[in-house]
């Protein structure tokens, strides 16, 4: 059950009505009581039929309503394995523009699948309104039920509720936008040649992670507002007029030199693609539009990259809880339970660090453990929990979970809710890897002394800001060779990867004039410098 959120980081600007437009409905404090116990369990053959899916879906929906999961309308779609791979390869979206990298992705996905190295994702869910969930043809009935609970109610409610998604994605228009993007790119290919478009897309993709806004841009002022402000400024300036200052002789040369050095941009810019779209001197209008398309898609996927643990954990928690509730209510048979529980267990397995399959924390496992633990803290708090979480220990779990889902991203969620018990269960420990030290040091383990620093370290690990190098537009040499200066500010003296030079070539291609990249250490010293001249690159 892996979805494709992080495979390629693609976004979409938010709607203007992010917060004010849709107030979330207040969460229930306690679940509604179950309806009458059914006379018999739902039929449980291994093969699904449309009828059966419909029956299960009805029960799952009714159960989800008992917990007041607020979702977009659901649209379930049955697809084949090939279509699943296809969606998988094109960043999990139902339509997308054509690009060779998706072809590459498809080929490697297909190869792994055929070899049996990788089970396909059981489901893909798209943050759209209505929320589209793909069910794969090959799944058994139990798996379809699991997927519906996981995707159509878990992920779906997360998409609708989490603040990042509310702020940065517009679920209602993403599919239409992608259709537009696909057609636009196709039209450009026809008019300007496949090669030109491919080069441009390659360059944009290289900078995709640097094509997102982390904060809202202020909205554009209307003409009347603009005029009003001008008037205010004028009035203010009039008040400040003091004839005596005029009589001072101008400072010799300094002002002029300062003016000469007026920086552009006035402040460093972190959204490289936006800066290029608006300011690259040589881009044609169609090229700017394509840069914009890539940027919008990157923005659309930005929340998903920041809420991996939360999103997967939430969906996993809810499929677990919903299906168990259905079993308690007498809807599910033992066979179905065993089957989905087996799959669930695989999904939330966290291999320990010395395991051959270990490749970092499993977001499903961590997220599921954390949400489950929050529920436990609410219901049966221990003294330790009362000490660590005085504000949620003993509260209503439904309300608390809802709050935890809506108002956090991975970084803050872990910083807030990673409990000592979860750290103990995972047997977490942190290692400091310092270049100047010949050995690694274990800086904290899951004990009283280490909880706090472990939690901080874990939280930082999920901070996109420190995971990705901090690279910003520093300045443009307006009066000289129009060269663009990027600046990498090192975090903990971590250097850039060697392929920075390759990426810089892409920047130079977009900018059209020489591009420099400086890597600046914590002391303000430039430790490394790259330069690419587009005429030679």
């Amino acid at each position: 059950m892996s979805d494709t959120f992080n495979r390629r980081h693609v976004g979409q600007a938010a709607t203007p009505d992010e917060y004010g437009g849709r107030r979330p409905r207040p969460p229930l404090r306690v679940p509604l009581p179950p309806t009458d116990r059914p006379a018999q369990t739902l039929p449980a053959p291994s093969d699904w039929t449309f009828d059966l899916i419909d029956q299960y879906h009805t029960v799952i929906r009714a159960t989800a309503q008992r917990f007041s999961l607020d979702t977009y309308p659901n649209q379930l779609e049955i697809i084949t394995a090939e279509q699943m791979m296809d969606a998988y390869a094109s960043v999990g979206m139902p339509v997308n523009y054509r690009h060779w990298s998706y072809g590459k992705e498809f080929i490697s996905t297909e190869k792994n699948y055929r070899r049996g190295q990788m089970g396909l994702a059981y489901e893909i869910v798209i943050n759209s309104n209505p929320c589209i969930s793909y069910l794969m043809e090959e799944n058994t009935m139990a798996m379809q039920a699991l997927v519906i609970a996981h995707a159509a109610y878990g992920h779906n409610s997360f998409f609708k509720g989490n603040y990042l998604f509310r702020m940065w994605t517009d679920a209602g228009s993403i599919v239409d936008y992608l259709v537009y993007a696909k057609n636009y790119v196709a039209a450009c290919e026809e008019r300007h040649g496949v090669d030109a478009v491919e080069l441009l897309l390659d360059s944009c993709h290289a900078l995709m992670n640097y094509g997102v806004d982390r904060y809202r841009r202020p909205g554009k002022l209307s003409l009347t507002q603009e005029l009003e402000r001008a008037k205010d400024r004028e009035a203010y300036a009039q008040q400040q007029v003091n004839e005596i200052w005029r009589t001072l002789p101008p400072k010799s040369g300094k002002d002029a030199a300062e003016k000469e050095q007026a920086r552009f941009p006035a402040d460093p810019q972190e959204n490289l693609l936006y800066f290029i779209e608006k300011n690259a001197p040589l881009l044609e209008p169609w090229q700017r539009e394509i840069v914009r398309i890539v940027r919008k898609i990157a923005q659309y996927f930005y929340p998903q990259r920041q809420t991996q643990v939360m999103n997967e954990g939430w969906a996993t928690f809810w499929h677990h809880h919903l299906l168990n509730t259905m079993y308690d209510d007498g809807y599910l048979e033992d066979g179905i339970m065993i089957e989905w529980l087996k799959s669930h267990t695989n999904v939330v397995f966290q291999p320990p660090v010395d395991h051959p399959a270990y490749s970092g924390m499993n977001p499903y496992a961590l997220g599921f453990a954390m949400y489950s633990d929050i529920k436990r803290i609410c219901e049966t708090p221990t003294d330790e929990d009362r000490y660590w979480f005085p504000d949620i220990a003993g509260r209503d779990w439904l309300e608390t979970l809802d709050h935890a889902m809506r108002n956090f991203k991975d970084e803050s969620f872990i910083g807030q809710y990673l409990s000592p018990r979860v750290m103990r269960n995972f047997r977490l420990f942190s290692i400091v890897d310092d270049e100047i030290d010949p050995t690694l040091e274990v800086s904290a383990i899951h004990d009283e002394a280490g909880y706090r620093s472990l939690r901080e370290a874990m939280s930082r690990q999920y901070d996109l800001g420190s995971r990705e190098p901090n690279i910003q537009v520093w300045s443009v040499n307006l009066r000289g060779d129009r060269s663009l200066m990027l600046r990498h500010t090192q975090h903990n003296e971590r250097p850039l990867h060697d392929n920075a030079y390759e990426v810089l070539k892409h920047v130079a291609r977009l900018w059209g004039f020489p591009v420099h990249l400086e890597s600046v250490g914590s002391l303000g010293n430039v430790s490394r410098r790259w330069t690419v001249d587009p005429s030679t690159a």
Partner: protein
Amino acid sequence: MQQIIDRRLAGKNKSIGNRERFLRRHKEQIREAVRRAVEGRGIRDIAQGEDIHIPRRDISEPVFGHGQGGKREMVHPGNKDFVRGDRIERPKGGQGGGGGQASDSGGGEDDFVFHLSKEEFMQVFFDDLALPNLIRTTLADTPEYKTHRAGFSSDGTPNNLHVVRSMRGAIGRRIALGSESRRELHRLEDLLAELRAQPVSAERLHEIEQLETDIAALRARIDRIPYLDPIDLRYRSRVRTPVPTAKAVMFCVMDVSGSMDEARKDLAKRFFILLYLFLTRHYEKIDIVFIRHHTQAQEVDEHDFFHATETGGTVVSSALVLMEEIIRARYPRNEWNVYGAQASDGDNWHDDSPRCRQLLEHGILPLCRYFAYIQVVDQEQNLWHEYASLAEESDTFAMRKASEVDQIYPVFRDLFRKEGAAK
């Protein structure tokens, strides 16, 4: 109720466009791989797919990322016996992945491997090649026809009868023909009803009688309108349109005299197969005629052509005479695109070579689209010299030498290079 949508039938092969772009991008590597593959392949399976290896660094998409070094802290699960302050040896080659998503690059520096389908393989294989002098023979006398539908007509055979159209026509006709009578009928019936409502008198009775006979006559008239008339019948119309023929015949001429050993035959065979595959991409129907010769020529089937061994001297002209005879007898020029390919080790009966040239120049080349001669040894003998002078004069004749297996494909590409394409 929520609708579950079945998408399984829609959008098969949706990512084909992406795949095409991927192949386009790595054309050079793929072409190189195809070339290597052809060299190593047996003759039987030349037209198959192939696994293509591309170095992973060539297809990577660079993004900014952190390199080794600096200070970082990583949290891992599964502590067994560490306590705070423990020191661990730095693992060689760096810790695998800090943030978690190391799985993607976990494959290391392996090549990126994918399978090229047979069609794609052939596409690359014959990329940039074209048949010289390709004119699709169209002919006036006995063209080939294709039939296809073209609307409806009022005559045809019963099996083409279009029932719905016919019945529709019939209804229209019945309405049109009967409308006048029906209107009159309705008028008379109204009148009758009116008269009946009035008090009875002899005059009225007479009138009523009169009306009733009129009404009966009208009814009979309406009934006489046929339900279905031959005029209503509509037939699906099928028209025959002439299509240009795309038929080709390929002559494989090979020397099987004692000097042609298995290795040389293998070279020749490779060349013939390439030519055959190439022609299949241009023509729907291809005949192959195998002519082998030593001092005498004979037409044989494929197996005998390649496997039967003969010994004896060599008279090339015998094969050319036979070829010309066969063309004239079975493959009229206006119906067939004739291609010839001759393979030989260059040995010939000394006095025969000028005659070969004569035969080609005046007999065969005017009937051919293209004639290629390939010599499977390096040594130039009189046949080569005679042909060389012919090649200078004729543009439908080409000749090359190939003495090693790996030369066949380049030679072939060279022969069929598109005008203006780079070597």
